[in-house]
């Protein structure tokens, strides 16, 4: 079996990519994609550990978590896109740095 550390390295680089995307990107749609990358990094961690917990078997707990989590990620994405539609209506742009009227 492939060593666990490769998977963990991949997961943490995915997580870092997601955070980088959230911190630097200005387009709102890209921010949502960054969020989805973060969620996928977490899902992948569950899948990896469920395969390594009992060699030869997979743990059902982790799989049910991942399936539920994919559904939740989808609903967050839907809500986010709806808000982006309204934000576009009021600001006329997808640039997140324009959303700074609230201060203090």
């Amino acid at each position, binding site marked *: 079996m492939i060593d666990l550390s490769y998977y963990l390295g991949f*997961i943490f680089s995915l*997580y870092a990519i*997601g*955070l980088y995307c*959230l911190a630097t990107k200005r387009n*709102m749609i890209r*921010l949502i994609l*960054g*969020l989805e990358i*973060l*969620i996928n*990094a*977490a*899902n992948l*961690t*569950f899948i*990896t*550990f469920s395969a*390594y*917990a009992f060699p030869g078997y997979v*743990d059902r*707990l*982790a799989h*049910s*978590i991942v399936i*539920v*989590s994919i559904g*939740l990620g989808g*609903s*967050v994405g839907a*809500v*986010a896109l709806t*808000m*982006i539609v*309204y*934000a576009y209506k*009021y*600001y006329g742009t997808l640039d997140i740095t324009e*959303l700074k*009227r*609230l201060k*203090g």
Partner: protein
Amino acid sequence: MTALFNLPLDILVLFTVLTPFVGWLALRLKRKSLIGLFAAVGLFASGVALYGMYAGVSSGSPVLSAPPSLFSSFFRVDMLSFIMAAVFIGMGLAATVYSVGYMEKDTGLPLYYTLLLAMITGLVGVAFAGDLFTLYVFWELMSVSSYVLVAFRKETWEPIEAGFKYMIMSAAASATLLLGLALLYGLTGTLSFEALASNPPTANAWLFITSILILVGFGVKAAIVPLHTWLPDAHSAAPTPISALLSGIVIETGVYALLRTYFTAFLAIQTQWFGILAVLSILTMTVGNLMALLQTDVKRLLAYSSIAQVGYMLVGFAVGTQAGLSVGLPALPAGVETALTGTILHIINHSLMKGAAFMCAGAIILRLETRDLKDMAGVARKMPVTATLFAVSLFALVGMPPLNGFISELTLFTSTVQAGVGWLGVAIILNSILSAGYYLRVLGTMIRPSMSEAVSKAKEAPAVMLIPIGIMVALIILFGVYPEPVMKLAQQAAQELLRVGGS
């Protein structure tokens, strides 16, 4: 009949699903207030069902869900869960009744009440959860419905901007939390609180990383200071009943979830967290109070003061982490139990105080149609009942003696002295004095002799809004004058939190 989850939660789920249909019918009959009434009936029924569980919970052993339920999700109701659920359902009921008056002119009311019930369902689910997976699912139910509720008045830009900020930060935090849970699962092979507590993972670098990820994940909802930036926007832009719920109970849920995880999974490394949590608590209350001093928008002011109040709760949490010192020893270190009692008590009290304060502010905003403090000069003459209730809840937030805020802050202060970290207690007192500055400014504006133009046309808020506030204010006074019963419940909750899974 097999239950879906357990009775209070089942009732909430049922009413959440039925509300859109009832809402559609109510709009057909042109009786808007029926929807709110239906939601209130649901919350009340759930509260009654919750009271039915009291006998089982108060005996000291947690009530577990019957395993062969439909989703085989795992519930574990002990005194702490019971108190949290009671606060959630009570506040939800108050906010629903209040909404009947406040949201009268809005459209999309069936959606509003459905989301409100879904949020309460999520909150109660978080309180009842017996493992971190169940907790996560209900956590997301609560979060997603609160994003939509913050941006509910989508006709203007402000709620959309605030809602989007809130959603990005909160969803990133949820993903971080999920990664933390995944690592915890990798370390231990289980996510059940009892299994984690009876067999806590040993201290190593991975456990530290996990605890940091989980602190960030729950900390964004709890508005711990470097992670608080979404709160003042979201809490001031949301419709007022939702602000009251977000400030009164949603941020406390973050504190609750932190307590649950740190006192089960992270027992081995708990003591190392004391310093960090102490610094974070001082930072949180100081930043919250200083920023509140600068505000002119009354809802923003209350939102910042919520951050400060979370700081007080974190003090109890920080002192409580000293419990990790005594793993394997018969007695707990001094002050730990008092500190957790104080935190739980402050969660109950803060939800009452801040809920009442937000609702009073909302009543004034509804009549004046402005959120600026300047325009509220002399409002006490035109809305005497609202202003009196507002004054009582603000005095409670300052920590004035015969009111409930004083009791919980005193308990927290006592615990810091008992644990030998009096400087944390001094920070609470200094911050209470600082906070008096802006609460008294609000009061001073309300009783100013000159009336602004908006005020001269105002009239008293409708009774449907004043009744829930009145009940909450009565509870504020009752818990301040006669705190023993609540104190006893909070103490039992603290004791049970300290021995999840143990003995």
